[in-house]
């Protein structure tokens, strides 16, 4: 052991370099998180064992990637965000501010999103667009629906996890929110089963981070697929804006001065954009449900 001191550290690197290095470190930590790996393993197993081709109802299987990449990703990101909280007295007085650390954490969502995109491509390979099970939607609209159901939740879930980790102290918050969203999505879908032609009911169904767009009738001809009202494209926009809101809310923690004002201003703009997107998603698409 020696008491000799090395010369002072080299010139402090630019904040951007430190941010990139920190983001890479957080990405590596996220990549080995057991919850994320479990979700990734589950979705891989589901896709590997999926025989592909036409299925009676695509909604019965398109929700799995959202649950295992988005939901599990949210819980992993929540854990990752909270993991350094005990060391906050030390980390809180380093040159990398809390919002910068939060931003670095947000970048980990790239990994589950990339997995979501791969899952989407794999899914489309197994169940090519244009099959009867997608209903009367155009082929681009079918891709938009699948993107909103597979790839975007894999991005939004982890971002929500970071926001929760920054603001909520309860250690089980991510699991509670995961169950809440699951219940919420199903709850807002139920009225569409009984009132598929109603604009307010469509709007209600769109007011969710995840939405179903087709239905196989319980009664009547089982080969029929009903394409519901609502615009898949604007719903995609709504989802992406929800992702932006999650990022901004996460960044707000610990932000002060001009940065805080900027984030609040951005939040107001994004919230207005969310309202517009939701309205367009609820009122766009087919004028009436279309049966195929």
């Amino acid at each position, binding site marked *: 052991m020696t008491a000799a001191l*090395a010369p002072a550290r080299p010139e402090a690197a630019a904040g951007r370099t*430190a941010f990139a290095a920190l983001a890479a470190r957080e990405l590596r930590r996220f990549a080995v998180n057991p919850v994320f790996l479990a979700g990734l393993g589950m979705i891989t197993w589901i896709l590997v064992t999926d025989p592909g081709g036409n299925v009676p109802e695509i909604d019965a299987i398109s929700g799995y990637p959202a649950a295992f990449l988005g939901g599990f990703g949210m819980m992993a990101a929540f854990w990752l965000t909270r993991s350094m909280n005990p*060391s*906050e*007295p030390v980390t809180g*007085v380093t040159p*990398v501010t809390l919002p910068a*650390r939060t931003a670095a954490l947000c970048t980990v969502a790239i990994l589950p999103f990339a997995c979501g995109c791969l899952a989407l491509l794999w899914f489309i390979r197994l169940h090519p667009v244009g099959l009867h099970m997608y209903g009367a939607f155009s082929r681009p609209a079918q891709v938009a629906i699948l993107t909103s159901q597979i790839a975007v939740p894999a991005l939004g879930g982890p971002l929500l996890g970071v926001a929760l980790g920054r603001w909520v102290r309860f250690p089980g918050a991510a699991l509670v929110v995961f169950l809440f969203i699951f219940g919420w999505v199903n709850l807002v879908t139920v009225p569409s089963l009984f009132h598929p032609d109603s604009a307010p009911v469509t709007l209600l169904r769109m007011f969710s981070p995840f939405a179903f767009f087709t239905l196989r009738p319980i009664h009547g001809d089982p080969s029929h697929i009903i394409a519901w009202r609502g615009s898949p494209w604007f719903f995609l926009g709504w989802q992406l804006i929800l992702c932006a809101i999650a990022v901004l809310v996460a960044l707000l923690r610990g932000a002060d001065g001009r940065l805080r004002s900027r984030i609040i201003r951005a939040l107001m703009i994004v919230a207005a954009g969310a309202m517009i997107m939701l309205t367009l998603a609820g009122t766009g698409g087919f004028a009436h449900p279309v049966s195929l």
Partner: protein
Amino acid sequence: MPTASITLRDVGRTFGATQALTGVGLDLKPGITGLLGPNGAGKTTLLRLLATALPPTQGQLSVLGLDPEVPAERTSIRRQLGYLPQEVGFPRGFTAFAFVDYIALLKEWTQPAARHSEVRRVLGLVGLSDLGSKRIRAMSGGQRRRVALAQALLGSPAVLILDEPTTGVDPEQRVTLRTVLAEIARTSVVVLSTHQTEDVAALCERVIVLDRGRVRYDGPVTDLVHQAAGRVWLADEPDPEASVSWRTGTGRYRNVGPRVRDGAEQVEPSLEDAYLLLRGGSPDHEPREEVAS
């Protein structure tokens, strides 16, 4: 290179209705300054202010000539700051090396080779070279304290704020730590809070005694000790005239008080005696007039 310094002008800090610090004025230069005081005196609050973890509610604080209230300047201060808080929690699953490496990253050591080398260096300074790969959760309290200390030493900071650095650290490590701090203090402002008066006596040129949020004494350690000269004596029984008495290992009683009984066996005062005398011998003693030099 400009000399490192910290300046406080009439600094105060309140927490709701509680006044933790009142009218603190200090000029801190390179060297080691010890901070003494009873529990709740405001030591940790003062250190948190110096470490930019907390803004003052009154007065002006300048660290290295920069204003910590201005975000950009606060970041500049933090680039030159090492801080050991009173309590540090560690993330689950981290080894000592991984933790210090993570903090080094947050201190903008972005070049992996240089960072790893620096992490190894500071782990060596605190005597943990061989335990870098050990999980922190599996370490003893003293070892964890040294891991926390290692992160504060990263980059030989111009300002080093240490809140009870030797708690739980064994005597040999404390001696080593003193050597390390003395080396850093050649060019850096080192402020350490402790309840170990022997650490202050061994390390610090200057001592600040805080009591109920106010500075009771600020001056050289030797001057404070000198104030106790002729006020410490040994006796076979606790002396009712003394402010504080305790039984020593020899079976006799060491008495500290404002007046020595005639014929009593006087002894050389220690910093602890001087501190107790200043405090009036009781943790709840009402502060008297300022004794600061």
